[in-house]
């Protein structure tokens, strides 16, 4: 009953509706890519190089004659796969870690927090670029690196909640009635501490999409001929100066739409989760 109310509350927001619509489009692109895309995403056609958008090629072709529309559709798979995997891994590691370092406040917890400080004192993009290049430019390495960069964020969010929750009377009550540390942490504290981290998931996926695209753009991410949005923009970058706009424009739009989708969903989720943080 209560959950139904939250879902309805969420769906009443225009930002949630727009976000969900874009998300649905992306999911369709992911599942039905072979049926939607008129051409192969990795097959070059030297006779169709740099063709402007037309009936045959809806969004034109790039320098090696690959169909841009087909590549954008297929790239949804790679981009969402990397970003969502990275955020799920970061969430799965960051949440229990934050719970532990919030609940046990010993030397080890302090050390972990300092380690987070060090990781977060690097510009995210710079550290990501260095890590991917050192580990090898594979799709999975990009996801792992993004996960590592996001772990401190989730752990900090949970820790901040845990720190205030652990002093509350209901925790003392649980302890008095003989609950073990594990039971207190996972049954009593965690469910009450999850909300900010869950809201952060959606926003983090958007950030991950931007970072993935940026990494591929500078050549520290996915490699050709894999269809990936950032990589596609970088292929169009040289031609932009010569007035060939479609190669870089459309994959960029795909990035904007995808990030916007997760940002809108995140905003709506935050407003539902925390009614005091309504729009000003």
């Amino acid at each position, binding site marked *: 009953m209560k959950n139904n109310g939250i879902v309805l509350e969420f769906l009443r927001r225009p930002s949630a509706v727009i976000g969900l619509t874009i998300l649905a489009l992306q999911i369709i692109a992911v599942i039905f890519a072979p049926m939607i895309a008129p051409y192969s995403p990795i097959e070059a056609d030297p006779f169709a190089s740099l063709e402007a958008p037309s009936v045959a090629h809806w969004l034109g072709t790039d320098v090696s004659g690959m169909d841009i529309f087909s590549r954008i559709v297929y790239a949804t798979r790679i981009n969402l796969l990397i970003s969502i995997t990275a955020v799920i891994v970061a969430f799965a590691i960051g949440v229990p870690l934050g719970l532990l370092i919030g609940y046990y406040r010993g030397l080890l917890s302090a050390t972990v927090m300092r380690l987070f400080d060090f990781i977060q004192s690097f510009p995210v993009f710079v550290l990501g670029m260095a890590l991917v290049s050192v580990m090898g430019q594979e799709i999975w390495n990009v996801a792992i690196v993004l996960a590592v960069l996001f772990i401190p964020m989730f752990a900090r969010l949970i820790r901040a909640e845990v720190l205030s929750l652990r002093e509350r009377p209901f925790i003392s009550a649980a302890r008095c009635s003989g609950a073990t540390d594990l039971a207190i942490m996972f049954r009593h504290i965690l469910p009450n501490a999850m909300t900010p981290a869950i809201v952060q998931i959606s926003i983090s996926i958007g950030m991950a999409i931007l970072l993935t695209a940026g990494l591929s753009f500078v050549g520290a991410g996915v490699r050709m001929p894999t269809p990936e949005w950032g990589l596609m923009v970088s292929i169009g970058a040289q031609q932009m100066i010569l*007035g060939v706009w479609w190669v870089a424009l459309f994959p*960029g739009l795909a990035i904007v739409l995808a990030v*916007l989708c997760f940002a809108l969903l995140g905003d709506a989720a935050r407003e539902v989760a925390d009614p005091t943080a309504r729009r*000003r």
Partner: protein
Amino acid sequence: MPLIQYWRVLPRPLRIVAGRLIMIVPQMFGVMLVTFLLVRLLPGDPALLMLGNMATEEQIIALREKLGLNLSVYEQFMQYAGNVMHGDLGVSPFTSNPVVVDLLERAPATLELITYAMLLTILIGVAFAVISVIRPKGAIDYGSRVYGLAAGAIPDFWVGLLLIYFFFYVLGWAPAPFGRVDALVTPPPTVTGFYTIDSLLAGDLNAFFSAVGRLLLPVLTLAIVNAGALMKMTKTVFADAYRSDFIRHQRACGLSERTIVRSALRNSLPPIITLVGFLFGFLLGAAVLVETIFSWGGLGQYAVQAVINSDYAALQGFVLVAAAFILVVYLVVDILYELADPRIKV
């Protein structure tokens, strides 16, 4: 005890600065640890990878010796830290210069870019935030809301490309996106390293206008993408100050709107200073992408080249310098924050 008494006698600004300066030592140490571990992650022989394929047997043995690869990890780290503190970041096999020399040569280009981008970002972000708070539901309020949402979703490298297309290719207003001055203009003699300042010092107006023209698009790119975040956060902070009791009191006393806005801004200054510090970090990361597009020849482009060439000595050096730069920015930010908010006890 006497030491503490000396401490208390010190003037407040001095206490703030001294307190913060002590903190930076362990932070720098941590940053060095991360960059050290970064290269330790390399699969295979770091010496071989750092020197590249052209290395001779003696070079590899020498570097292995220097990196201390046969020592324990702890001793290796101490050795690395020692090298860094002597300003030795290794030699880049691609430019065959010491990495420190390469970085110092390119740092002014990046600093000039992000300084101007920062100024424009603050100008746009704060101006829109203030206007949309004092004129709610107006065109600017509505526009800024859309902009705030969109700016967070737009990749900076894509904005840069669109700007090049419109302002260089279609309209022809902007100069070609290749480097910091026109190829036919000689760069001004180095004083500060900022072309805009150096050219004025040398009295070379030609070079000055060329440098300004080249700066326009990259600076605009960085500002468009980053001002959105600053605007959103400034709006929250400023709206709180603008609706607080002391502002209501000022208005009741009949002070002019101008004075009221100014004092509300003064009171929201400390959080804004913190945000600006964070923005420097974002800008440094974004500069990597934007420099690549505009062939800027700064630190960011050097780092991208290092990634493409698998030049790990250069990459490690860049990451270290970037983090050290951010630490110094945060240090300055913390000091300014405490100076701007007299309530904070030191």
